[in-house]
């Protein structure tokens, strides 16, 4: 048996949890970018990304020309991620081989997305990375050691912290309350639908709550947090996780396609995806895919970044932040009102902090820092100086982190491994999906539509 718990060493969490490491890495990269910027330079050299290309020879020429920059970037990612990985007790040697594999495929996926006909053939990098990962994981037997680098959550959290640097803090303040209101309406409705349908179908209350949190709050993280808080049976969380993964992957493809068919503006689609997708990483894949349609597909209005921005506000600020409160409330209900399980000890307010997704601090600090720096420039100087020398390189690094994540989603999704969820949990969760998607669509496109359209125009 192995336990890493200690009441007296909460500071140790700063180096044991990947949330904190995503902050150290994300803010560390941002700090470097800011220092270079104030020194009159930029980290643009190392934040290289493939540029638009027309023919294969164009692509080959730019890759050869920038090869030293890609090597430098690989060394940078390997060094910072590898350092963190050691603290998370993952073998660096295995991680190195695994990450090299991820990085090389990511270059190909990224480059494919820059083809000038990529949109025409629906070759958006998030979908290509995900589909490629799914094919590899389910058709090829990969060695165990190769899995060391498939850290979906770690990459997405680093990407979210970096995303903070590209999202004005004033926008978070302006849009945050609406996002919280819309997300709360949908979260509460989804939770109670899943919980009561589950109970009606004869499910254990704890399983119904775990499923409800998976659908209402933050997917796999919601399921696992509530499973621990209520003392669920050991099979409850895997059942919920399997169903969440199924629906999250369906939604990655479905929400952008439906939004595209309906011609939703980017901000509106991002808000809907933020309300109705079940996992952060899955939602970013869907939102980034949809953002790429702006300017490429006729009838889709709004800023390409607005889909990701609206999604982030809705999912991170509106839903994820509240996981600790859900855990506290359900823990109290489970220990005082539900059938006894032989365990006692009620949660306290500390539960809110312990389960708080700490990477959100990094996201907020990054946003605050770049917003504060930008205030010293007029709009023209911001566009000509701050954006190309500070914001764009960070955006490029964020794009890499997201591609590592999207590819890892596919690579870790081995369909044959998943727990057999059973029909009743699936029906209960699916009832929540139906309510969630319809209510999320109604709120995004009718009730708060002006707000999300406006966000897309900023």
């Amino acid at each position, binding site marked *: *048996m*192995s*336990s890493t*718990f*200690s009441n007296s060493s909460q500071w140790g*969490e700063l180096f*044991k*949890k*990947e*949330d*904190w490491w995503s902050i150290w890495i994300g803010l560390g990269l941002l700090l470097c970018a800011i220092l270079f910027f104030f020194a009159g330079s930029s980290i643009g050299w190392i934040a290289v990304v493939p540029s638009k290309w027309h023919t294969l020879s164009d692509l080959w020429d730019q890759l050869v020309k920038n090869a030293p920059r890609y090597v430098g970037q690989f060394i940078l990612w390997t060094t910072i991620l590898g350092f963190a990985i050691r603290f998370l*007790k*993952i073998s660096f040697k295995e991680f190195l081989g695994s990450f090299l594999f991820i990085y090389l495929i990511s270059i190909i996926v990224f480059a494919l997305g820059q083809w000038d006909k990529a949109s025409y053939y629906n070759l958006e990098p998030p979908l290509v990375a995900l589909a490629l990962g799914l094919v590899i994981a389910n058709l090829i037997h990969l060695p165990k050691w190769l899995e060391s680098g*498939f*850290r*979906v*959550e*770690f990459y997405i959290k680093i990407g979210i912290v970096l995303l903070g640097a590209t999202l004005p803090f004033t926008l978070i303040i302006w849009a945050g309350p609406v996002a919280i209101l819309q997300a709360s309406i949908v979260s509460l409705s989804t939770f109670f639908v899943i919980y009561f349908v589950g109970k009606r179908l004869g499910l254990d209350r704890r399983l119904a709550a775990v499923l409800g949190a998976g659908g209402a709050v*933050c997917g*796999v*993280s*919601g399921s*696992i*947090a509530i*499973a*621990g*808080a209520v*003392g*669920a*049976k*050991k099979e*409850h*969380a*895997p059942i919920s*996780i399997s169903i969440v*993964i199924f629906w999250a992957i369906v939604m990655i493809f479905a929400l952008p396609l439906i939004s595209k068919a309906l011609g939703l503006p980017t901000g509106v689609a991002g808000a809907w995806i933020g309300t109705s997708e079940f*996992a952060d*990483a*899955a939602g970013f894949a869907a939102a980034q895919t949809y953002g790429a349609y702006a300017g490429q597909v006729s009838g889709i209005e709004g800023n390409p970044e607005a889909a990701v921005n609206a999604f982030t506000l809705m999912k991170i600020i509106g839903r994820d932040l509240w996981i600790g409160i859900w855990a506290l409330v359900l*823990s109290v209900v489970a220990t005082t009102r539900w059938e006894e*399980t*032989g*365990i*006692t*000890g*009620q*949660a*306290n*307010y*500390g539960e809110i902090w*312990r*389960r708080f*997704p*700490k*990477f959100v601090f990094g996201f907020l600090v990054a946003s605050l820092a770049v917003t504060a720096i930008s205030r010293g420039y007029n709009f023209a100087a911001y566009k000509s100086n701050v954006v190309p020398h500070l914001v764009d390189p960070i955006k490029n690094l964020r794009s890499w982190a997201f591609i590592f994540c999207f590819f890892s*989603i596919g690579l*870790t*999704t081995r369909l044959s*491994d998943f*727990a057999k969820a059973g029909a009743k949990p699936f029906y209960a969760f699916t009832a929540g999906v139906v309510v969630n998607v319809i209510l999320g669509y109604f709120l995004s496109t009718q009730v708060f539509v002006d707000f999300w359209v406006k966000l897309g125009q900023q």
Partner: protein
Amino acid sequence: MKVNYGVKTRQCANCRFFNNNPADLERSMVGLRVFGSGHSSVVSDDGLCEKLERYLSGRYVCGLHEIEA
């Protein structure tokens, strides 16, 4: 709300049947790594109890507690 975890040493986290090693959690909960992680803050100090066959907070207490050797 009053915090009352009882005697710290009797909390599940200190029991020999309790395991909250992130790598073990990821191995035993298939799919956890797809959109989650055993190293995440939301996991807090939760772990699997071999005796009760439950996934629970390390701060819980139960009558079957046995101190880790």
